């Protein structure tokens, strides 16, 4: 009896994950990727079984991308991270848990799929919102998550800023004024992407929601074509969805092979088709072609080409007393 109690205590305190190390994988991911990995994981489990005969299981953890980065830094034993912002993986790399050259480990800068920011409006688009300049008009209520805590918010902010830069011939002061006007129209800043969707959809606040294209189409599919319409602006941001193996964790759990295979699988035709069906933009030309009907054409820009490297962008716009802090304080 005593021995059994000891064993129970040991299994509780020794970490539940350690017992079957290599056959279990933990994927720490961003908030709105739930539906995507719900479909990809069974496909990979079947694929791995066919290849090696081994039965594995994959655990998922979902929260805001930056919150997940914080958790991994604090010791969450995720074998792989699948985030929606490069800066979040960089944050983990800066603590030495991921090698700093992680973007060279997988194709397409280690980003197996992408998305962009588009608009969700109420059915029939009663306010006639077509492009970014419509969002700064007086009387338009815009829902967007907080750019300081969420990827959606950050990409939305940067897309608006880059649109203004392009329109105003690179006038930075003018572009700052543009985003200030836009955020002046934002009544609530939710902390995460799904929270903002709930505010717009369930609490029925706002005329337009800015979020990932994947979230816009998923919302329309899940919650009713009769209630919402998607509006695709003329110009938007390429939102890379970076992935990385957490070296420190896989080395100690002896799960490196499995973790690598999992991330490589995301680039396979099978997974890329699931990606496209979940309204993310796949990297595979074939998968993109077959889903071309759902992706309306628009001009996409890369943050690093238009606004500079992520570290500088992060510091200038979202750091303490950065541009966002200043325009948002001015509002209050």
């Amino acid at each position, binding site marked *: 009896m005593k021995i059994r109690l000891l064993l129970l205590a040991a299994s*509780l305190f020794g970490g539940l994950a350690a017992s079957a190390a290599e056959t279990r994988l*933990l994927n720490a991911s961003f908030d709105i990727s739930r539906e995507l990995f719900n479909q990809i994981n069974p496909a990979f489990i079947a694929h791995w079984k066919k290849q090696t005969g081994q039965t594995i299981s994959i655990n998922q953890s979902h929260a805001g991308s930056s919150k997940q980065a914080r958790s991994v*830094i*604090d*010791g969450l034993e995720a074998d792989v991270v699948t985030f929606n912002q490069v800066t979040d993986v960089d944050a983990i790399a800066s603590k030495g848990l991921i090698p700093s050259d992680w973007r060279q480990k997988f194709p397409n800068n280690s980003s197996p799929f992408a998305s962009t920011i588009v608009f969700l409006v109420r059915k029939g688009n009663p306010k006639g919102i077509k492009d970014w300049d419509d969002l700064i008009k007086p009387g338009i209520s815009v829902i967007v998550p907080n750019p300081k805590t969420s990827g959606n918010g950050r990409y939305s902010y940067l897309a608006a800023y880059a649109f203004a830069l392009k329109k105003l011939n690179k006038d930075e002061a003018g572009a700052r004024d543009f985003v200030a006007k836009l955020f002046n129209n934002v009544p609530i800043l939710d902390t995460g992407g799904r929270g903002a969707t709930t505010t717009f959809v369930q609490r029925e606040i706002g005329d337009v929601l800015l979020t990932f294209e994947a979230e816009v189409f998923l919302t329309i599919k899940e919650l009713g074509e009769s209630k919402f319409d998607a509006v695709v602006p003329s110009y938007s941001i390429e939102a890379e969805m970076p992935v990385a193996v957490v070296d420190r964790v896989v080395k100690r759990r002896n799960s490196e092979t499995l973790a690598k295979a999992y991330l490589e699988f995301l680039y396979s035709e099978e997974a890329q088709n699931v990606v496209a069906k979940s309204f993310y933009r796949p990297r595979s030309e074939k998968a993109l072609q077959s889903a071309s009907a759902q992706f309306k054409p628009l001009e996409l820009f890369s943050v690093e080409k238009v606004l500079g490297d992520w570290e500088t962008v992060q510091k200038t716009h979202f750091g303490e007393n950065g541009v966002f802090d200043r325009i948002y304080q001015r509002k209050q």
Partner: protein
Amino acid sequence: MAGYVSKNIRDATSKSQRGTEESPLVKWTLVALSGTFLAVFLLIPLANVFVQALEKGWDLYVSALKEPDTVSAIKLTVIVAAITVPLNTLFGVCAAWAVAKFEFRGKSLLITLIDLPFSVSPVVAGLIYVVMFGLQGYFGRWLDDHDIKIIFAVPGIVLATIFVTFPFVARELIPVMQATGREQEEAALTLGAGGLKTFWYVTLPSVKWGLLYGVILCNARAMGEFGAVSVVSGHIAGVTNTMPLHVEKLYNEYQGQAAFAVASLLALLALVTLGVKTLLEWKQSREFARAQQNVESMMNK
């Protein structure tokens, strides 16, 4: 538990207050107001949980509860409560005994400390353990070197829950222990009973209802705690998600009916807690009344 004492005092003095009573109109207006308030803010939302949970029929309700991640969330919640509640009962009895029966330096400090978890936000309660045991925390490296996992595993969830539910048993016991006084125990001791025997046969029976009530409240909170657990859980579906976290997860995944099904279990727990609480209050006041009658009849003789 303090409620019982004042209730009995009120019962005892109610007859003499007849002359100063308000008119029936005021009385019924107040009753109607509070009744409406309770119905709108408590009863209807509570009933709605069950309506939503059973919206798509009993079969779907049961199958939602049989889903592996849900089963694991229920198991984890029960495990956490099974560790937390006995420990906090022990701590609570010790603390209450010390406060109620002994005089010592720093007593008021101890009472304040017992109340601390009530005044600290649960998020802070979670974060203090991350700061201590997280990988970047004070003991993080050492724990990591020895392959001991606390944060983002069951031990962290247990620690956070213990912190949040610590005051319940002690808070319920202190007034009851103070009210019963020391005379009976002193009598037992002079009659030759040992310390432990006195505790078991004299102290414990006189506070049993208060103790039970504290344990039940402690259990309800241990199973229902969201904030502190959310910080230390890591949200790994099927591994470190407790029932309240699982409700949030399901709701965020547009699985409204499944979310309400799990929520209905938590709501049931609340109803059982309420039922047991009412029963205990009734028992306690009956015993109290009987004791008073005995005293009165002895005085009249």
